[in-house]
């Protein structure tokens, strides 16, 4: 019996390995398409979408002066509805000074330390989530353009490599679930294609808003691998690859997921 099970598992793994290819562009689906009607309705209505609470907080923070420069985001960038429109759709973006891409959260903290002369906001803290949700929200409905910059290409490749790299005690790669077995069930939940279209998003399981890095940590822990520390270059490469992989799909920030 045990031997038979092992053979079956081996066969299943072999099939999965044989399929390892990227999802054709026309077959791509947002996590939204895998949700039930109730959760979709929750995301669609701005008075029921809990992510909007963070967007409102972000709007307040956008106008609040901070740091020894005594400047708010609005003092430099003005009205976010115009200045931040489409920005989140291009992130993670290549930063010439650092010679590598930075994600939206890192960009906010670069602005804070270099322009506002303020302390960086802690990762996954309420304020950073609120600001990134507010900025992301300005791009809702716009197509994702991240990774189009030629200078970002090597980092997209690095992210792709991480995505296809087996890791952890379960010896799984991201691609084995999200490229090869999307639409199947993991426990009771459908395995989505892993397109990062709505971050930061409100996850019902978390009962709060969370960043893409938190989501990646979740998956990495699920593979029983050790997560990278927040802010690690590996996350940014992965985020960049995921956004490039979702190129042309529309931003949903703040999305709701089960």
């Amino acid at each position: 019996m045990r031997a038979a099970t092992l053979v079956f598992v081996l066969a299943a793994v072999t099939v999965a390995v044989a399929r390892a290819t990227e999802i054709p562009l026309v077959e791509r689906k947002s996590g939204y398409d895998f949700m039930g009607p109730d959760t979709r309705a929750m995301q669609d209505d701005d008075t029921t979408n809990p992510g909007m609470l963070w967007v409102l907080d972000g709007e307040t923070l956008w106008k609040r002066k901070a740091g020894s420069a005594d400047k708010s985001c609005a003092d430099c960038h003005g009205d976010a509805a115009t200045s931040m429109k489409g920005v989140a759709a291009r992130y993670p973006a290549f930063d010439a000074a650092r010679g590598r891409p930075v994600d939206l959260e890192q960009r906010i903290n670069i602005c804070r330390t270099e322009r506002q002369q303020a302390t960086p906001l802690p990762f996954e803290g309420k304020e950073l989530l609120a600001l990134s949700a507010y900025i992301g929200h300005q791009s809702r409905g716009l197509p994702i353009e991240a990774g189009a910059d030629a200078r970002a290409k090597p980092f997209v490749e690095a992210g792709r490599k991480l995505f296809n790299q087996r890791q952890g005690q379960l010896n799984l790669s991201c691609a084995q679930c999200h490229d090869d077995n999307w639409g199947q069930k993991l426990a009771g939940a459908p395995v989505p294609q892993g397109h990062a279209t709505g971050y930061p998003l409100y996850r019902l399981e978390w009962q709060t808003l969370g960043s893409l890095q938190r989501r990646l940590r979740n998956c990495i822990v699920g593979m029983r691998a050790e997560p990278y520390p927040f802010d690690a270059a590996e996350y940014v490469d992965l985020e960049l690859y995921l956004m490039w992989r979702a190129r042309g799909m529309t931003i949903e920030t703040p999305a709701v997921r089960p």
Partner: protein
Amino acid sequence: MARALINVPAKAKRGEIVEIKTLIQHEMETGFRVGTNGNMIPRDIITDFVCKYNGEEIFRAELFPAIAANPFFAFSTIATESGTISFEWTGDNGFVASESADITVE
């Protein structure tokens, strides 16, 4: 003060049934969880929600630890007269939040 999102139709016909939706930001800490230091995290929840239509109570809810963070309520009422619909949430540690919305009944 906590943020709340209110959805009350601005206009309604007299006698019409209108839907009211409210969402408020709150952690709803159950009091049953253990923190990273091994100590219990004390309970911090909203305990009561009251909605009044021109001062008259039309909806009330008691909340308990099993209710999700950022509680959402949807209910309906009959639009009887123009006026104000007010909402108040109260909870542990002196938590109080209030909102109001105007409705015009024709």
